[in-house]
Every structure is written in structure tokens, then in C-alpha cells.
């Protein structure tokens, strides 16, 4: 069998090199555009290849040839590869959308020279977070994507964006420090930050210390994923950014937090002592998030609140801590990335056609642009969980997993998730009625939506529909991913084949080994 491990670092290396290239070419926007599109297309190809290859077992690269626990390793297992594929498809669509937007509007709305390199750095950070097999490298991945997101959210530097950006940045910095503190404590307790080695060593330390470490990590990731008591920053800051930026943030950044929670909960802390607490958090996130959405008048804020609310569904699946729960949670993450990004892109088009995002001011869009009405309707129904769309399949999977667990708390969550779905449907139908059917205050001139913006949006919606059409194989894939997550051994064995060292070179330690092990 040919060794394909060289594919693993590509989703990080390509966008980072392309970012440097794009920055150097800031005087030639057209070349910049070309570089960015090619880089992201290559990342998509590499991710799909990884998705196929990882099904046979995790692919591991010891970076720089240093053996795993000493050096840093990148691991592409089923979960990472799936997240990587969905995220690179989404980033490519959003990029094409913003290219068309840049062509239509003047440079001010999206200054290409800054936007493109930053966007590439963001994708590199996301890929690094997904692939990292090392806790500190995960932190670096987070910081890469956060630093890029700080620039993107304050793009243009208007008063409203500076206000929103300040809140976003301060909260993100705080969560980073928490993560850093957690890493320091973990290192003090175990002497390693390699995930696979931690999986072996954490069970040996004092259970009280282990609980503290778990709480610290969960806190840091829950802020990033916007789980309820720590979610207030999200609806405050996301809506002011440009539409494509909000779309990619909503789709990806919170999901990186969810991914980190899945990874650490399964690999590092499989004893599940915080599952009940997580279930309560999931319930609160779902219900309070959606109640927030119901109260909103601005459609971007409404969607931001549904985003918070639906993070609760994923946390629900994680908190169940069964194969079925993880299967549904991973499927739900894939579904939610595509559908939430698509909805925010559509809202960008709505703002263009209707001149506002306030539901009281919008109206009559169904008559004005029927295409837009369809583009909004499909992902909205998908998010609300109308059969046979992927949202329904994800929710039914979660409910099934909850019933299978059968504890009273799990039943409470099942009821909570159904109520949340209904309220989501209510909020979205309300938005639909207001924006598309209401008689507008003043008739708007007919608009032609640029094809370059409609096509990527439609493509993303088609990806969302594909999740329904290909639900059988995909669900089987997420199930295999979930099973290997709960088994833990495939991951650990792939990183540390002999239970001690990775495949890289570490001559000096190898000599020492007999001494340490009599």
C-alpha cells in the first residue's frame, strides 16, 4: 500500500503558503483571487482524499520527523477528515460568494488585499485545529484562526464593528487564557501534552485533579462553542460583520469548539463524570437560545440565536456519551455547518434585495425575487427539522440516542429538543412571513441578484441536500467514526504504535529507554 501520509499536512500548509503569496501580491487583486481560489480548491481535494483514506484507519504524521510524544503530530482520523471536508467545501463556497460580492460592490465592502490573506489564514487555523494530535498545537490552531477572525470581524473599522469586535476579541482572549491555564495544569500533572499519550496517562492521576482539568478544558471550549451560560458574546458580535464573514464564522468557528469538546471528552475523559452537567448545559443552550431567537427583529440576530440554540443539540449528543449519541452529534455538526452558513449567505442576499435586515422593514421579497425565496426556504426548513431534510435526520438520531439511554434526564432533553425544533420552525416561519410575504412599507425597485453570489449559495444548499440524499453512507461513516472514538484504541495505536513512541526519529531518547525500563 502506498503511503499517503504526506496528504495530512496539506490542508494547513497550502492555505498558509498561499496566504503569504496573496499578501505579497497585494498590488494585483486578480492574481490574489486566483491564488486563493486555487489554494482552497486544492485543500478541498486533499480533504476528500483524507476522508476516503481515513476510513481505513487514522493517518498520522510526526511533524519534522520527531517521534510523537516529544514532537508534534498531526492525525487525520474519520472525525477530523469529515470535519475537514465539510469545512473546506464551505470555505470555498463562501470565498466564491465574497468574490462576486467584491466584484459587485466597490472595494470598501471587502478590501481584497487584506481579506484574502486573512481568510486563508483562517482556513489554515481551522484545519490545524481539526488535525492536531497535540493539545498545545490545538491551542496554536485556535490562535491562528482567532487572530484571523479578529481582523475579519473588524474589517473596515466602522463604529458598530469596532464595538462588536471588542466584545468578541476580549471574550476570545479570555477563553484562550483559560485553555492555556488548562494546558499548563495538564502538563504539570502528566508531563505531556500529546493527546494520545494523555489518553494513556490521565487515568493514572488523581480523580479530583482529573476532574479539575476536565472542567478547565470544557470551560475554554464551551466559550468558543457558545454553550449557554457562556454564549452571550455570540449574538452580540456576529451580526455586524459582512455577510460572508458572518457566514463562515457561524458555520465553522463554533464547530471547532464543538470538535474540541468531542475530541477531549472521548479521548481524554471517557469516564463521563460531567455528562449530567453537560446535559443540563445542552438543555439550557437549546431552550434559552431559541427563546432569544423568537424575540428578535433583526434577521441576522435571529439566526445568531438559532446558532447558539442548535449548538445545544450537538452538546446533547456528546453528553449522551454513547456510540449512537456521538454518531448523531457528528452528523448534526456536518449538517449544521452547511445549513447555517447557507442561511447567513442567503441573508446577505436578502439584505441586498430588501435593503435591510430588520423584519419590520423588509417585505414582499417573494414577489420581487422568487429565487431568493426558494434559497431561503430550503435551508430554513432544513434547520427547523422538516423531513426528509438532513436536519430531521440529525434530530431523529439524537432523539433515538436519548431514548436508548433512557434516563429521566435524557427524556427531559428529548422533550427539550422537540420543543426547540418547534420554536425554531416558529422563528423561521415568522421571519419568512415578514420578509417574503408582508406588504413592504414602500415598494422596492426590482433587483437583479448577481449570479456569482446566487450560485455559491445554491451550491451550498445542494451540499446540504446531498447530506440528505447520501444520508445512508454518511450516517454509516459517522457511526464508524463514533465507534472508533469511544474505543479510543485506534487513535492511540496509530499515534504510538508500540505504546511508547511515534514513527519519527528520536535517537537520543531511544538510547535512554533501556535505562528507564529495567
Amino acid at each position, binding site marked *: 500500500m502506498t503511503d499517503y501520509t504526506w496528504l495530512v499536512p496539506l490542508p494547513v500548509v497550502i492555505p498558509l503558503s498561499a496566504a503569504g503569496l496573496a499578501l505579497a501580491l497585494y498590488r494585483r487583486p486578480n492574481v490574489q483571487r486566483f491564488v486563493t481560489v486555487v489554494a482552497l480548491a486544492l485543500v478541498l481535494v486533499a480533504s476528500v482524499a483524507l476522508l476516503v483514506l481515513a476510513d481505513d484507519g487514522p493517518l498520522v504524521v510526526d511533524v519534522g520527523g520527531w517521534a510523537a510524544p516529544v514532537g508534534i503530530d498531526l492525525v487525520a482520523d474519520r472525525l477530523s477528515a469529515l470535519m475537514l471536508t465539510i469545512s473546506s467545501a464551505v470555505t470555498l463556497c463562501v470565498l466564491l460568494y465574497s468574490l462576486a460580492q467584491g466584484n459587485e460592490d466597490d472595494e470598501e465592502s471587502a478590501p481584497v488585499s487584506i481579506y484574502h490573506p486573512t481568510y486563508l489564514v483562517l482556513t489554515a487555523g481551522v484545519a490545524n485545529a481539526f488535525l492536531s494530535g497535540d493539545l*498545545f498545537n490545538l491551542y*496554536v490552531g485556535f*490562535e491562528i484562526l482567532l*487572530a484571523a477572525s*479578529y*481582523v475579519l470581524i*473588524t474589517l473596515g*473599522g*466602522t*463604529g*458598530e464593528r*469596532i*464595538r*462588536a*469586535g*471588542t*466584545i468578541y*476579541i*476580549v471574550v476570545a*482572549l*479570555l477563553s*484562550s*487564557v483559560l485553555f*492555556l*491555564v488548562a*494546558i*499548563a*495544569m495538564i*502538563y*504539570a500533572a502528566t508531563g505531556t*501534552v500529546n493527546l494520545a499519550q494523555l489518553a494513556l496517562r490521565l487515568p493514572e492521576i488523581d480523580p479530583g485533579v482529573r476532574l479539575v482539568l476536565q472542567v478547565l478544558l470544557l470551560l475554554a471550549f464551551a466559550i468558543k462553542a457558545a454553550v449557554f451560560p457562556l454564549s452571550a458574546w455570540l*449574538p*452580540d458580535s456576529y*451580526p455586524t460583520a459582512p455577510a460572508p464573514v458572518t457566514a463562515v464564522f457561524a458555520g465553522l468557528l463554533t464547530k471547532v469548539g464543538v470538535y474540541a469538546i468531542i475530541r477531549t471528552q472521548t479521548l481524554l475523559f471517557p469516564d463521563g463524570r460531567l455528562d449530567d452537567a453537560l446535559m443540563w448545559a445542552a438543555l439550557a443552550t437549546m431552550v434559552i437560545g431559541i427563546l432569544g431567537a*423568537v*424575540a*428578535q*427583529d*433583526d434577521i441576522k*440576530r435571529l439566526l445568531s440565536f438559532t446558532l447558539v440554540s442548535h449548538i445545544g443539540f450537538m452538546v446533547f449528543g456528546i453528553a449522551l456519551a454513547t456510540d449512537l449519541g456521538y454518531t448523531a452529534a457528528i452528523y448534526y455538526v456536518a449538517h449544521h455547518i452547511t445549513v447555517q452558513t447557507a442561511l447567513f449567505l442567503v441573508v446577505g442576499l436578502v439584505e441586498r434585495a430588501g435593503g435591510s435586515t430588520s*423584519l*419590520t*422593514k423588509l417585505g414582499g421579497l417573494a414577489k420581487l425575487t422568487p429565487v431568493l425565496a426558494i434559497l431561503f426556504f430550503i435551508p430554513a426548513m432544513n434547520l427547523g427539522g422538516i423531513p426528509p431534510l438532513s436536519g430531521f435526520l440529525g434530530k431523529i438520531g439524537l432523539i433515538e440516542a436519548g431514548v436508548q439511554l433512557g434516563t429521566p434526564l435524557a427524556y427531559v432533553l428529548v422533550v427539550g429538543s422537540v420543543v426547540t425544533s418547534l420554536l425554531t420552525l416558529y422563528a423561521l416561519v*415568522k421571519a419568512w412571513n*415578514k420578509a417574503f410575504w*408582508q*406588504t413592504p*412599507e414602500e415598494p422596492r425597485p426590482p433587483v437583479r441578484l448577481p449570479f456569482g453570489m446566487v450560485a455559491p449559495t445554491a451550491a451550498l444548499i445542494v451540499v446540504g441536500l446531498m447530506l440528505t440524499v447520501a444520508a445512508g453512507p454518511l450516517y454509516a461513516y459517522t457511526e464508524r467514526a463514533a465507534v472508533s472514538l469511544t474505543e479510543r484504541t485506534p487513535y492511540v495505536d496509530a499515534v504510538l504504535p508500540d505504546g511508547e513512541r511515534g514513527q519519527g526519529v528520536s535517537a*537520543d531518547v531511544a538510547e535512554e529507554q533501556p535505562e528507564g525500563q529495567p
Partner: protein
Amino acid sequence: MIDMSPNIVLVVTIGVLFAAGVYLLLERSLSRVLIGVILIGNGANLLFLVAGGAAGRPPIVGDEPERQMSDPLPQAMVLTAIVITLGMTAFLLALAYRSWQLHRHDEVQDDVEDRRIAHLAAVDERAFADLDTEVAAGTLDEEAAEARDETDQGAPGTVREVRP
């Protein structure tokens, strides 16, 4: 067995840095928040030094006996963290300056739309208005320029007016 008993001076310093940092983070002014972030960040950096165990000789293989070396890995991590904190600090400074350019102060403002919804909730209004209801005029930016925070004395449209 490595000596892992922490240095009490370092631990107390970390505690003080975190306490002062958290206090400053809760302030309104962005420059104070920034100083809070720096203090907390440095507290976390010191924590890494504690995590690395007792201080020792420089970790250069061949020069020093291996038993007396200090652990280089946490120091490498601290260096990375310091660089990252530096970059973020610079960005926050730029934000504070931009905020001062725009508003002549660097206080973090409340979300106007959020206040509007809270206002509606306080007077028990519907979140959205129908065609025949009067909508308050003015864009978000105009309201943002007026609305500040609790140090204002009753700026128009603040929640405080609504409360009895």
C-alpha cells in the same frame, strides 16, 4: 522522581496577577481591559514555569548533567504564548485607538439592538411591529452614537428610563 513542589513566590504572584487581571477585565474602558488581559496572560505564562518543575541548569545536552537540567518544553510553550499575547495586545491597542478616533472615548458600548429588545420586553411590547405600528426612527449607528453606558446620566433610549 523530579521535584515538583511549586515555588510559593511564583504561586502567590500568579494569584495576584490573576486577581488584578480579572478585576481590570470587568472595567468599561478598553485600555484597562487591555491591561487586565496582559496581567492574566502573564499569570498564565508564570503558571507554565511552575508546571515545568524546579529550576535547573540550562538544558543543553553534553554540557550539563541530565539530572540537573530544567525542563525546556514548558519554556518553549511560554515563548509561543508570549508571542501570541504580544500580537493580540497590539491588535487590542489598535482597537482602543480606533474607538477613541471614532467616539473620543474607548469605553465598550452596549449593544443597541439588545437594549431595544430589552426595552420592548420591559414595556411588554411585541418584538416586531406590524405595518400600522409606529417604529422608532433612526439607524443603529445614530443610536450607537448617543447611547453609552451607566456612566451616562440618562441618555435617551436607555433601559434605565423604562424601569420604575
